[in-house]
């Protein structure tokens, strides 16, 4: 009898201990694998730590829509006439989730596909849109042809959504609208939500900003600096950096037991390919620069600004663009774009607009009171997000309060596919 009681006691104690462990585990431990924000940003999440998602979902791929039927598209952009997007839909009534991609990314980027699967699995129809900075969006759906002013870009996104909604055949299958986006797409989601408060077409029930930029100009300049400051000898020696990178990849590839440059290769060979953090930063800056070069060239041609391509010169479908590619990817990046293309364009419409005012109106600070008082808007970011400046995290905490979910690490969007993050992202929309 006594031993039985003792046994019962220890069982109880065990249960309590176990419970305590579970609670502590949930509260404190966050096991996303990369502690270094540069590494996290480049490598994202290894397969074993990702959320379990379906391999294939029912999705309408390569869907297109003509946003401006009257628009004359320059011949050199003939393949971008129609806006490409994808939509995954259930056969029964469900809420519709709208996803906005990050800077330069298409609707089908790896992160977008991950999000599309996660939300589809959770019972949403999912519409994936390219970033307004993506060349396809600029050519087919930008009213100005000049992305970078977030208010104007948000209007373009809204217009695309309205156009798509008008032509959607199965409206009765959509119960509600939700909105999310990552990186620049996260910042844009806030402005689209604000616009929706006036226009009231969709009445988004909830909106989540994932790793947004507080001020897109500051973030872009930060990313530019990562490239320019970390290439020994400056941008004119980019080729040396590039050759070294290729050399390192080749060496790991030749001597390792890798079947191909896919799968685990980059996780396992990372230290050999990028032996010091300086090169990691340069690589992130390089990736941003590619997006920027695409955007700069496309905007220049679409607005006939005469910046890289001589004004009124018609480029054909087969003109070599290699030299334009070189010029577009040199220089000092977003600042150059903002000063020489973006600002002159918007000043032509409003001569009293100052450069500072143009930059300031693209900051989330400019809609602070809306963000502060809108319970439907949430935010996810990381303490070590490389696009944020000192004090940005505190600002987010102060404005969003309990609606801000801030992870201890993950860099810029590196932990988006991590199982805890995906669970949080989905639950944010599932709970009311």
């Amino acid at each position, binding site marked *: 009898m006594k031993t039985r009681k003792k046994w019962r006691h220890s069982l109880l104690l065990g249960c309590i201990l176990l419970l305590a462990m579970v609670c502590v585990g949930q509260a404190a431990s966050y096991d996303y694998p990369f502690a270094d924000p540069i590494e996290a940003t480049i490598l994202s999440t290894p397969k074993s730590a990702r959320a379990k998602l379906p391999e294939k979902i029912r999705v309408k791929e390569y869907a297109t829509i003509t946003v401006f039927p009257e628009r004359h598209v320059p011949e050199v952009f003939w393949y971008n006439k129609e806006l490409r997007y994808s939509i995954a839909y259930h056969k029964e009534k469900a809420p519709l989730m709208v996803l906005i991609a990050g800077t330069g990314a298409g609707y089908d980027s790896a992160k977008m596909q991950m999000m599309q699967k996660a939300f589809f699995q959770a019972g949403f129809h999912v519409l994936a849109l390219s970033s307004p900075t993506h060349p396809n969006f600029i050519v087919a759906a930008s009213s100005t042809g000049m992305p970078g002013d977030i208010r104007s870009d948000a209007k373009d996104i809204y217009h695309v959504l309205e156009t798509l909604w008008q032509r959607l055949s199965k409206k009765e299958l959509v119960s509600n609208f939700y909105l999310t986006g990552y990186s620049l797409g996260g910042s844009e989601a806030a402005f689209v939500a604000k616009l929706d408060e006036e226009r009231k077409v969709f009445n988004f029930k909830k909106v989540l900003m994932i790793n947004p930029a507080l001020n897109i100009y500051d973030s872009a300049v930060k990313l530019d600096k990562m490239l320019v400051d970390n290439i020994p000898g400056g941008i004119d020696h980019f080729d040396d950096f590039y050759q070294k990178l290729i050399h390192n990849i080749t060496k790991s*590839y030749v001597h390792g037991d890798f079947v191909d440059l896919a799968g685990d290769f980059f996780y396992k060979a990372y230290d050999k390919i990028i032996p010091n953090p300086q090169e990691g930063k340069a690589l992130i800056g390089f990736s941003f620069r590619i997006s920027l070069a695409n955007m700069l060239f496309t905007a220049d041609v679409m607005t006939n600004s005469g*910046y*890289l391509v001589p004004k009124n010169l018609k480029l054909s479908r087969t003109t070599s663009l290699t030299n334009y590619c070189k010029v577009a990817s040199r220089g000092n990046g977003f600042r150059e774009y903002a000063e020489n293309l973006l600002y002159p364009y918007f000043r032509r419409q409003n001569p009293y607009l100052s450069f500072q005012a143009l930059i300031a109106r693209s900051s989330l600070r400019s809609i602070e009171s809306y963000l502060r008082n809108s319970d439907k808007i949430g935010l996810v970011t990381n303490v070590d997000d490389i696009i944020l400046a000192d004090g940005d995290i505190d600002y987010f905490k102060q404005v969003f309060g309990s609606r801000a979910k801030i992870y201890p690490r993950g860099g810029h969007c590196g932990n988006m596919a991590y199982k805890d993050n995906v669970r949080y992202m989905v639950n944010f929309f599932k709970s009311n």
Partner: protein
Amino acid sequence: MKKEKIRSTKSILLFALLIFIMLSTGCATNQSAQKNGAVIVPATKPVAAYVRSDVKYAIDAYDPWEGFNRHMYIFNYYFDKYFFLPVVGAYEWIMPDYLEDRISGIFKNFSELRNFTNNLLQLKGKGTAITTGRVLVNSTVGLAGMYDPASKWGMPVQKEDFGQTLGHYGVGAGPFLVLPVFGPSTLRDTTGLVFDTAVHAAVMNWALDDVNNKTEIKLGINVLGAIDERHRTPFRYYQSGSPFEYEYLRKLYLEKRLMDIAR
């Protein structure tokens, strides 16, 4: 046998002619850039002043046939859009995913022949041995290649082709070349492709020697093989939307080939 040979030479000639026609029309239409009368104003940041001869650019590549290549790039887009992809789409619609994967397995097992010859030609003992092991295991336990137990048993694919073999022995890539249907290549890799295809055809010919409707069967296998290959290739022309997709793809292709050869 002789008839076969004539037929294949004929198709090679036809292919060469097609390339020649494309090449000549490519050169002709390239000049028609400017039509209407708007005055051309020099750019703020002109190419002439900003592309310097003393700077090496990572994006540069040896591409003397760029005009032709860019035309072929567009041709491939339309070929995909109006013919190839609809056929592949129909195939994917009819076939359950599971069956598609088994068919892919069978064709991958066929391509071990190419891996075998080229590992051997490069005197890569380990690669040749592993490839032999793969064929033995996957053809039997793996049911004619439908499954790939060899990979799980520590015998990963040893991909080699004749372009790599040529590269291994020091033959340079030569000019970049966009082939109709096949896509990005180089002069060396195109030579390699012709060689590998010829070996494949010869072996298939020999294997099917006693079969009655040989021509029809061969045609069927080749068509299915082409469909399967496209089905397995996620690449879509112009899907990136980037104005510099051609440049980026060219660079990636050339770089990847160098790595494969160095291996």
